[in-house]
């Protein structure tokens, strides 16, 4: 019985159907399926499949985005029960993301956030035009394993260095790793400012974060 429900959950995520995903989550609760089982055996396999197909060039960004939305909906339904049972979803790591101060570009950062979240990371996206102090605050608050700093402009990329300096001053380094991204960034730049990694695209960013946290 659960097996069939899990298959439907997987399919709802693959279809990117938030309404169906939420309904299946309700059904799981009603029939006493433990929420963590629903997530790990039902919804996550759907995401994994979408991720694999995306990597293979068979599925596309909108498929990823809608799958992530469906997943979010399902988790939102299951969360109260998880809290009641005092169970927690296993996360691969905690990531704080944001675009540096003075820069309002977010498309690349959002893609990275979405792909990390769907890969099983807990992502705290601080948005755009984020002051270095906010990065530090959030890294501390969420015990971040990784802080991702995005910049699209050559005029704002220096802010990536500032974030690293302030994390250091706050004593959060080197435990908290820093990765940088954005059009003007490069591996050379990452090395120059003492970042732990750089990726040119969102897929690479996931691999990088996995490697940094040993997941």
């Amino acid at each position, binding site marked *: 019985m659960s097996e069939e429900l899990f298959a439907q959950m997987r399919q709802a995520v693959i279809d990117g159907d938030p309404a169906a995903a939420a309904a299946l989550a309700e059904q799981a609760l009603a029939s006493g399926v433990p929420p963590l089982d629903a997530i790990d055996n039902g919804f996550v396999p759907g995401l994994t499949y979408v991720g694999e197909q995306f990597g293979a*060039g068979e599925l*596309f*960004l*909108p498929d990823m985005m809608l799958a992530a939305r469906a997943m979010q909906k399902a988790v939102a339904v299951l969360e109260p029960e998880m809290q009641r049972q005092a169970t927690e979803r296993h996360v691969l790591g905690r990531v704080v993301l944001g675009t540096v101060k003075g820069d*309002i570009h977010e*498309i*690349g950062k959002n*893609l990275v956030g979405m792909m990390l979240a769907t890969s099983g990371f807990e992502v705290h996206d601080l948005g755009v035009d984020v002051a270095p102090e906010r990065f530090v605050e959030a890294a501390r608050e969420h015990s971040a394993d990784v802080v991702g700093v995005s910049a699209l402009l*050559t*005029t704002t990329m*220096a802010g990536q260095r500032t974030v690293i300096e302030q994390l250091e001053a706050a004593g959060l380094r080197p435990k908290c790793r820093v990765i940088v991204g954005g*059009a*003007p960034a490069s591996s050379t730049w990452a090395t120059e400012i003492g970042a732990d990694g750089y990726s040119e*695209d*969102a*897929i690479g960013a996931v691999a990088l974060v996995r490697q940094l946290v040993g997941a």
Partner: protein
Amino acid sequence: MRPRFELLEPALIDRVVDEALALLATPGVKVEEPEAIRVLTGAGATADGSRVRIPEPMVHRALDTVPRAFDLYTRSGRPSVRYGSGAVHFDPGSSGVAYLDPATLEARQSMAADLARITRVADALPAYDAVSTAIVCHDVPTEIGDLYRLLVCLANSDKPVVTGAFTPRGSGVMVDLLALDAGGRQALADRPRAVFDVCPSPPLTWSEFACRNIMDLGRAGVPAEMVSMPLAGVAAPVTLIGSIVQHAAECLAGIVLHQLAAPGAPIVWGGAPAIVDMRTGATPMGAIETAMIDGAYTAVGHRLGLPTHAYMGATDSKVVDAQAGLETGMTALVGALAGVDLISGPGMLDFLLAQSAEKLVVDAEAIGMAQRLLRGIGTPTETLATASFEAAGPEGRFLELPETRRLFKSEQFLPSPILDRQSRRAWLDAGGQDAFGRARGRVEELLASRPLPSVDAEVATGMVARVREAGAPFGLGKALPGVPAGFGGS
């Protein structure tokens, strides 16, 4: 007859404008600058925080005062870019962060000397009607990056400059430099030498700096060029037509603000939109759909009677290869046929991240071909062919006819040796190089043969002094990279 092509029927253009006007009313535009909000609400817009709703009559009033045409002038006062004249012009794409090293094919951080190189090559090639602040100079303090680039362009070329400011301070100094070059503020307003790109942020947002910038430029009488960049499917509707509507809404909002700040000031309906590649999230500038959005919004601009601009003639390839050639050529041709007044993009690789002097040289041939196409098929002889046959006699001695010698140069575009039309034997004898190899040689030839512009010594000294003054607090050293030795006493 000039060949044209139509991407949108007139009725569809009307729908685009109608929906753009509807968007300006609901949800309105996000305006992130207090004075801009005051200017807009003072004229009839309503604001809820930074969300500003602009009613249709405000847009019509603004469109009534926008100049339909204006020119950018060379240093000697010759109109070179004639916005709104029907002619299509080209300039190198702007603000790359890397320069393609022709020897190693490495895209390294761009420096001021690279900008000087690009500028002098564009100055030497007749295909380019303007130069541009084509790259960011990493060897110059960031705080004066914008104004320093303008100095490099003014010191290395007589042509108009397509540029842009990074900060209000930069914009102020840049206008000072241009006024020095023109012989005063009034002379600059009468015969502008530069146009400044101003970028709204997709979707439907005018940032604090963009608002400040567009109002300041208008008030200084310096032409502004809006570079709206809907990214179809991510920061704009996925449909090409939806992105065209968004472009129109962003630009109409800009025009309203600009004309309220400075009625009658020149402004251009421009952009750098792109589709989004759904496999990677990349925004390909060489995609045909990107060019289609450009061509279509240009048609909307024409319909509104506005000067137009677009980012075309660029490639996403990392080197100057077959992909670079086909994407550049195809998009430049679409732009030319669409009648874009000024096309920026040549020289650009890798999603506008890298510039290449060699590509600029190759692209000049694509531009030559596109311009030839625009001249169309003429009828320079009284009969189309019969008189020629009569004159050539039964043996068909066309090559000996005076009309052949007289007309072949206007009938044909004569490419440079970049386009190989030799026999295989002659090509092998000349080294058997591909177009990129030939371009490397041609860049060196152009740099060696092109004289530096002659700039009045006092003017040059004034410009250098202004840049030194602006740069001193940020650590601008004694050396002025990219500025020719001796310029302004440097």
